[in-house]
């Protein structure tokens, strides 16, 4: 089997090469940028920026024992944004040329009626971010497809060998390599090259009656070499987990309903923070005062001991960024410190309007979208308690260790998230597995009910995708084992 070659060598694999990439491929240089900004700034505006993108994504998927299809998608384009007060004009094109840049700039500036005498437009010297959080020797999209196919076939064989009750194995491997370049009218020009890989394994198990089937799912990924996923030491535990969860669900009992004490396990249950706290602390909702957290800086929103951060600077993590999609370096932002609300997540527009500093959280799905304040990797810092002690402290309750998705109503603060692996707690011991547990609560209130914090902080395995206003971006979450008193559990057993 021969492997297809990439369309052109995508050799640049470090952020410093992003500017050169766009210059060579699309003739984007200082002159064409200056001309675009001159057009954009002919009206009375506060600023303008350009976002160039070239992204390759490929994927292979296996089901019924064979890799049925391979996909490869190339996305390229540029977005021109003009800012005036709280207004934004945006135009984008899949044609990266001086002509379409100028046209897009004149479209974007229609939000401004008054004309202005353009000032001198700064000269752009493309710069690289000060660091590279995700260096890769080879773009993940350049790894030969035959190797990826082989991996999925091995996974299938291994999964079926684990248990005869497995009736279906679905596995997929997705690799992405994204070049971006941000230029602003003030003369900042910064590029980034972002690898992203992800391996998903889903199995369906069927019991002896042939009528009852359950799913087990596990995934992992991040901004790192695809080779890491090819290693059996990485993917075998992943498959074992998927199989274990499917079998567990075959034996699960209906979930109790009502208010009870809940222990959340470490890692992925950090989705609690993402839904209950994170979205409500995004700058746009707070600038517009539509968030349940509006005007609450300095107030207690969590129990003493609770510290929550958003950190885009963790090497290789799915939610990490060298620079955000407005060219601001990512950072570690403390949101809640020892129970007190101390920070919001900001992009440039909302930071300017609120008189705050941007926090490197201006993100967008692609050049077809406006940036917005978004999370990166959001987690609670570890406490000092032993996780086993935390479990033993609950007489009747729920122990939830893995979750599907969640959602929040920013304005009322109400959030939900659904457990994919949870157990009853009876007299301080882990009891029967339960199915279909949905947890619901109130964002500004839920962290005040955190009564114990474990020492076992873990980050998730790199599978989170966050949706907001129709835009999806990769994110990470993390949590130590915690106990939350009196959370509503939505099961079927009243």
């Amino acid at each position, binding site marked *: 089997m021969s492997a*297809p070659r990439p369309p052109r060598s995508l050799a640049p694999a470090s952020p410093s090469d992003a500017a050169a990439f766009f210059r060579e491929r699309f003739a984007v240089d200082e002159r064409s940028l200056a001309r675009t900004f001159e057009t954009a700034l002919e009206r009375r505006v506060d600023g303008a920026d350009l976002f160039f993108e070239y992204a390759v994504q490929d994927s292979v998927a296996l089901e019924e024992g064979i890799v049925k299809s391979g996909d490869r998608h190339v996305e390229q384009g540029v977005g021109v944004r003009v800012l005036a007060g709280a207004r934004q004009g945006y135009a984008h094109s899949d044609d990266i040329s001086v002509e379409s840049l100028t046209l897009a700039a004149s479209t974007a500036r229609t939000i401004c009626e008054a004309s202005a005498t353009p000032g001198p437009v700064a000269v752009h010297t493309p710069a690289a971010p000060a660091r590279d959080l995700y260096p890769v020797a080879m773009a993940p999209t350049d790894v030969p497809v035959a190797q990826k196919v082989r991996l999925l076939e091995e996974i299938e064989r291994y999964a079926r060998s684990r248990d005869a009750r497995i009736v279906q194995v679905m596995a997929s491997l997705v690799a992405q390599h994204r070049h971006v370049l941000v230029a602003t009218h003030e003369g900042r020009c910064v590029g980034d090259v972002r690898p992203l890989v992800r391996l998903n394994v889903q199995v369906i198990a069927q019991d002896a009656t042939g009528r009852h089937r359950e799913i087990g799912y596990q995934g992992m990924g991040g901004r790192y070499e695809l080779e890491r996923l090819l290693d059996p030491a990485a993917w075998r535990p992943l498959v074992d987990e998927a199989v274990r969860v499917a079998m567990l669900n075959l034996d699960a009992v209906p979930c109790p309903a009502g208010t009870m004490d809940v222990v959340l396990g470490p890692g992925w249950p950090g989705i609690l923070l993402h839904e209950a706290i994170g979205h409500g602390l995004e700058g746009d909702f707070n600038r517009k005062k539509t968030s349940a957290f509006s005007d609450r800086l300095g107030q207690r929103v969590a129990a003493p001991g609770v510290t929550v951060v958003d950190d885009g600077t963790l090497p290789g993590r799915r939610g990490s960024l060298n620079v955000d999609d407005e060219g601001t370096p990512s950072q570690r932002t403390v949101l809640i410190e020892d129970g007190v609300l101390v920070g919001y997540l900001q992009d440039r527009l909302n930071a300017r309007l609120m008189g705050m500093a941007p926090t490197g959280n201006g993100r967008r799905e692609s050049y077809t979208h406006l940036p917005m304040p978004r999370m990166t990797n959001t987690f609670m810092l570890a406490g000092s308690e032993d996780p086993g002690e935390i479990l033993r402290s609950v007489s009747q309750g729920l122990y939830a260790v893995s979750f599907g998705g969640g959602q929040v109503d920013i304005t009322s603060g109400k959030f939900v998230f659904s457990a994919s692996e949870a157990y009853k707690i009876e007299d301080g011991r882990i009891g029967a597995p339960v199915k279909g547990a949905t947890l619901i609560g109130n964002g500004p209130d839920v962290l005040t009910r955190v009564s114990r914090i474990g020492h076992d902080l873990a980050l998730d395995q790199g599978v989170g995708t966050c949706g907001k206003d129709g835009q999806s971006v990769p994110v990470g979450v993390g949590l130590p084992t915690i106990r939350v008193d009196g959370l509503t559990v939505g099961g079927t057993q009243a």
Partner: protein
Amino acid sequence: MSAFDSSAIDLVQRAVQRALAAGAHSADAALAESDSFEARVRGQEIDFVKQARERVLGIRAFVAGPGGLRTALTSTSDLTPDTLDRMADETVALARATAPDPAAGLPEDGFAGALPDLGLLAPEDRGVSVEARIEDARRAEAAARALDPRITNSEGSQVDSGFRRSTYANSAGFAGSYESARHSLFCEPLAQHDGAMQRDYWLTAARRLDGLEEPAHVGRHAAARALRRLGARPVPTCEVPVLFEPMVARSLLGQLAGCLSGAAIYRQASFLQDRMGEAIASELVTIVDDGRLPGALGSRPFDGEGQPTRRNVLVERGQLRSWLLDSYTGRKLGLPSTGNASRGAAGAPAPGPTNLWLEPGASSPEEILRSTERGFLVTELIGMGFHPVTGDYSRGAAGLWIENGRPVHAVEEVTIAGNLGDMLAAIDAVGSDLVWLGAIAAPTLRIARMTVAGR
């Protein structure tokens, strides 16, 4: 907005021919071109205006292998001839790396003949100005704020207008193209009282501008929805009849459609797997999918594989009658395609609904409410607690508490839970109020009993 140029069919046919020349056994290509804008107004000020022209072309190639065809798919927004040629070659090379699949391939025959005019756009709407639509958003926003002094803020009112051309060709000889449009207006006000804030929304969407609801009506309706949520509180955990408003009832249909998809059936990933021909819902339930409803948001003259769209009765008086199938899932199940291949230009075809609705019943929503002694009327659902393999269902809900046939207070921070199979069987009232907010529609529904978890 300008019309599209005429080269679309040439482009997709060129891609197909190039894939064949590179060694493909068969191939198809899809091109989606769109010209659109959207704008949001907040407190009468423009929040953003966004304008876009997008084109995506996808090529799917099949390569002969032992016992079946190997498949690959590529897509790009760079439509220069050089790129397309190179991409067609790469698709064929990529296909050689995948496994032969006995069920893979294009439909053998039955392609759409003369394409009906389904009224998917009004030519005069091309002249629509961004300013006029922004004015619509302003009127909705103003009407929402004028309704009640407790409407103090908003997430904004948003309008969009988009024109699209969808073109498809394959090596079996089919080539077709059609244009469509979509316009919408969305308004999301905030109500504030006693230190609590609540939001809600209303929207209108149509193929033609004159099919949209009046902006002021959208604004007032959205505001009334936000206002009625003030004072919301959880209720004690209980089992009661649960009513779904049309806006949330349609989410049940969307989830059911996933479980009726041939892809879920052959993968053994649907709780309805062995139930064809059986009663899967109450006799009050008839569910239809029809891709040729004139002017409807889910209509299209042919599906993602060139098959004619048509009317399919999926559930008739509670009895399961048909899956949703494309040619691949049809072959897997030994059945003909139902014309439900759904496909964006960048993706592979997969079965999906076109216009999907639950037939309205005889009682008005007011009558259903009055006949409910004690229960919960759900007006919004959040979260993703639905498992297609088992039908297990558990989601966060907000709405109104009903005592003696009347709403008595707003409810929030509760969940509703059950199993979709049991829920369909327990539908004991179907309203006459079918409301189309998109391509999936349902009337008010009442489920005789569900678990509500609260305080």
